[in-house]
């Protein structure tokens, strides 16, 4: 079989629809997982009673179980418990919960570099613990944790391909679905690999811009 560019050109609209869904699901999940990360890390660092133990349990659970099992649990299991989410939101929820656990650890690592001195200084100026976290600790932690947060976000983007398993028509789904009908395996997988690569590089580019901006105060 030869590499058939005309075939790819034909399938391009379908691939772009898949790409658009991949971008939507990933972007939403990245934003939500960072939010989860910030909240979870705050709870851990401020040692909110009881809740911090729940956060620890959540992180351990997510990190020690396969993403696919979590995804199936959310898609097929939750309806049995009375929560039926659409394909899209099942996907967003599973990616958010998965990446959120890692973001908690990433941000917590960053928070540990924010010393006791800054905490005392913030408190001595009358800031509440919450404002200290929001205005001082979180921005500093994000700066330090940015490389690992980016890694998690890239993994999230790549792992969005798992969502094909529940039938969400994202990029990988489109490829597998077309392959199962047209058997243009080489063309399709090559195409989606190139697209994923472009997505990851774009994400890295924006992250490095953000990192540059966040590091401005530290360049003298």
């Amino acid at each position: 079989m030869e590499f058939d560019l005309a075939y790819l050109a034909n399938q391009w609209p379908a691939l772009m629809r898949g790409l658009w869904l991949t971008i939507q699901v990933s972007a939403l999940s990245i934003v939500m997982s960072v939010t989860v990360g910030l909240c979870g890390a705050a709870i851990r660092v401020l040692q909110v009673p009881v809740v911090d133990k729940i956060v620890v349990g959540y992180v351990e659970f997510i990190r020690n179980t396969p993403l696919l099992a979590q995804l199936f649990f959310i898609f097929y299991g939750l309806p049995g418990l009375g929560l039926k989410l659409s394909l899209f939101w099942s996907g967003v929820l599973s990616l958010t919960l998965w990446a959120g656990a890692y973001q908690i650890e990433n941000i917590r690592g960053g928070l540990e570099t924010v010393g006791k001195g800054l905490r005392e200084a913030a408190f001595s100026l009358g800031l509440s613990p919450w404002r200290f976290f929001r205005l001082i600790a979180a921005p500093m932690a994000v700066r330090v944790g940015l490389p690992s947060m980016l890694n998690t976000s890239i993994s999230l983007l790549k792992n969005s391909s798992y969502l094909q398993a529940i039938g969400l028509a994202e990029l990988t789904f489109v490829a597998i679905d077309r392959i199962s009908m047209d058997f243009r395996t080489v063309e399709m997988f090559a195409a989606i690999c190139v697209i994923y690569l472009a997505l990851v590089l774009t994400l890295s580019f924006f992250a490095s811009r953000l990192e540059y901006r966040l590091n401005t105060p530290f360049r003298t």
Partner: protein
Amino acid sequence: MTHLHATRLGALSTLATAALMTAISGAQAQSLPPLPDSIKSAGLLKAGVRCDQPPYGYKDETGKFAGVETDMAIQIATWAFGSADKIELTCVTAENRIPQLNGKKVDLLIATLGVTPERARVVDFSKPYRWGGSDMLVAKDSPIKKLDDVAGKTVIMLKGSTQAKWFEDTMPKVESLRLNTASDALQSLKQGRGDAYTHDAATLIVIAAKDPSLRLVGESFAVSDAAVGVRKNEAAWLAYVDAALDRMKAEGLYAKWVDKWVPADIRPFYTDAFTKPKPTAR
């Protein structure tokens, strides 16, 4: 062992084999063509079968491969290598079966594989060994009574299935939810994620018989032949498989396997599929 002994033993065994052949097959005796070296050298048969498609290919309660198509694969291994143990069975799905074959993970597919022009472009088909129609499964109280009733509704189907292709070509306005396995599809139907689940009628009959909350729509469509799939350009191997299928038919093995794997109440459908000509439908 001396030369003399060897010759004598060889002669004896030839005699014995001839006698045995005459005894078991009589007029039906069918010799298979020689097994191609590419297959023979592996020392066993690598076959792709379904694991979630009773009664054709599935795993029984103990996790053992079961079903008519599984028995077909085992039979070919028995003829080719002289033992039912000389086989390596691989679970394949609708979407990965052809890649598994062309990626040389398996040497043949006996995996509810319908004959279509698209597939014929990438694999070679044996003679058909049965036909298979499609049907839909819906909730017992569903308003869907015939095929056209699913217009504008969501139909659950498997990626790469005959039905996925058929709906795309014939009823493109139907929303589809495409999943990987029959169990995912069934689960999704029962959770109301789609209005109907379309698949091979043969598969759905088994499910409907077991689950009183579900009902078959009963309109047959996309009837196609099922055949064994082998890689392109393996003519000798294809010829061997064709001959093996002829022999199964001649020896009445299909009826025997249907009896073995299919409960009596739904057995006629399957017996027809293996032994009667293909009906006409949309």
